[in-house]
């Protein structure tokens, strides 16, 4: 979260009454959110289109779909969750990065380990 925001709220800013914004930085139109929203809708439609009319081989499509999904996730993280903003060291970013690393380990690892399964089934 942005610096000014925190300090403004800690001043006990009583938003119900104060009509003036908490900080100049955030006034105006929420461009970030709109861009994020548009982007996510667009990516969803592209993904659907690729899945329904696959222009080339399945393996390739799946890779592209996964790339699109990663982009979607980045949109959520950056435009909506503001993961890049922080006061002081960005420990939360580190935590999420580790989370994704372990997510990858669990998912990819399990699939790899359990492929023996297709041989015995």
């Amino acid at each position, binding site marked *: 979260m942005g610096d000014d925001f925190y300090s403004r709220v800690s001043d006990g800013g009583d938003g119900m009454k104060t009509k003036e914004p908490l900080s100049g930085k955030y006034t105006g139109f929420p461009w970030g959110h709109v861009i994020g929203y548009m982007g996510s809708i667009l990516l969803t439609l592209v993904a659907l289109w690729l899945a329904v009319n696959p222009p080339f081989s399945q393996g390739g499509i799946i890779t592209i779909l996964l790339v699109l999904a990663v982009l979607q996730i980045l949109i959520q993280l950056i435009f909506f969750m503001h993961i890049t903003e922080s006061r002081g*060291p960005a*420990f939360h970013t580190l935590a999420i990065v*580790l*989370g994704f690393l*372990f997510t990858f*380990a*669990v998912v990819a*690892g*399990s699939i*790899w*380990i*359990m*492929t*023996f*399964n297709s041989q015995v089934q």
Partner: protein
Amino acid sequence: MVHQIVEYLRNADPLIQMSAAAIVLTLLGIIFALTYYKKWRWLWREWITTVDHKKIGIMYLICALLMLFRGGVDALLMRTQLAFPNMNFLDSQHYNEIFSTHGTIMILFVAMPLIFAMMNIVVPLQIGARDVAFPFLNAVSFWLFFFGALLFNLSFVLGGSPDAGWVSYPPLAELSHSPGPGINYYVLSLQISGIGSIATGINFIVTILKMRAPGMTLMKMPLFAWSVLASCIVIIFAFPPLTVALALLGLDRIFGTHFFTMLHGGNPMMYVNLFWIWGHPEVYIAILPVYGILSEIVSTFSKKYIFGYKSMVASLMLISVISYFVWVHHFFTMGAGPGVNSFFAVASMAVGIPTGVKVFNWLFTMFRGRIRVTLPMLWALAFIPCFVIGGATGITLASAPSDYQLHNSYFVIAHFHQTLIGGAVFGLLAGMYYWWPKMFGFKLNETLGKWAFWFFNIGFYVCFMPQYALGFMGMTRRVYTYPAETGWGSLNFISTVGAYLMGIGFLFIVVQVLYSIRYGERDTTGDPWDGRTLEWSLPSPAPHYNFAQIPTINGRDAWWEMKQQRKAGSLVSENELKPIHMPNRTPLPFLMSLAFFVSGFGLVFNQFTIATVGLIGVIVCMLWRSLEDDRGYYLSVDEIKQTEASVRGA
């Protein structure tokens, strides 16, 4: 359900009926004593509703020691059964139940709470904080652990214990093969305490990252705090797979799904996979804080700064990440193929490197140090060779081809007891002795402690060294008896003798504690070991707000440096006191965990009404907490002055 329980008790073996009676009598005794001495109020106000990390730590410690007793009795029963060929002391069902509860209790209800005890008692004091980041959540964690353990132990008297090993692999653990409530107990109690563990992990990471005293940069932080940070990182990422494994197994058993069954496409190996994604990191959760404890003790009793601080930190962090990439070594024999097995074999061996770094650093710290062999140091010294052997046999097992020979043999039993007892338990006992004065204000008697130490140590080697040989001779784990022709008799007998020696060692610890409560040397200085880190700057036991003034830190081993400065007369005098903000005590953590317990108990017996009532209780407690406006209270300067005067004996 009542019917089911009565039926079970009626048909149970006399041993169980007797213990059930004994438990009921003890409970009645406790209730009577509490009433007679009018202690209910005290129990409620000082302990059950407390959010003080030091008291929570002490409660963890007490529960862990009680559970160690139960797990130890289980162990002795098993070793008695195995002492001679063709013994008839326990039947096979009994033996199965006992090794299952022994293993589960030792790992989840002894090792984990011992670690949480040390974390709770020490970390805030060491980093100069007044409490953990979320005291309320901390209490929730403890009570979830408590009720999880209670639920698990209840199985012993109500309905039958889990009997599919501490891993509870399907299909054996599925309804088709284990129809009673036993495995449900396992699933639900682990689930309940597991939620608490994740919460503790989050709590301590935030505490360590956000609540250090001014000046204490991360690289000036004591190694124990670093090791707790490493361990907590592993906790928050390793426990969710267990949560899922247990939940899915529970769904199979209670709702008839097919994740791990043999029918309708289920795949039991997927459980094994998920279980060990947690299971291997779990042993690092237990051992990492012990590395920290060792570092503190070795440095204090060698009167030296720890050798290679940075490499210690790096190796802790490295281990916490690598330990996530080795889990397949627990099921090499599934036959995932050469690619998979090679990858995980190499990764497993790689953990040895940072571990080796740590061992050498401890040795170099002691080198030319002024070593004082006190009880904590004694256990730390015993830890090193024991853990090194455990590590070496671990590398042996990590090599996939040799694991095909050794898997599920007594070699494995010997290996993991070597790391869990020689590693985790020795280290945690060292920590317990080291911080005992800080917790209770008196030292534990040295002489009795030495007796305990030698019995336990010699007992350990006598018990487990023969088991390596038994493994090579082909004795498999989880067998309740063996014929004389196998030739395993004599080594097994020796092993049992060792187990009893350890049992005597444990009794000495009990005697030592009881004796020292009355006669132990009182710690009036707050710094009985001439310590180096901040916890020793406080009186023993520390006042409930910990630090009247938060100290400012200039270097590593902050307290040591303050003492040097004070000697040199250059310590600037303290500035004035300010009111301290404290959290209120609250019954909610207890009530919420109780609700979890009720819900779990209902599910164990497929009683969905009870389960729902419990869950509603949980939700009500959460909403209550969310809506209540609990801002804590202030401790006035006068109160602080009074307390300081009385605890510092000034």
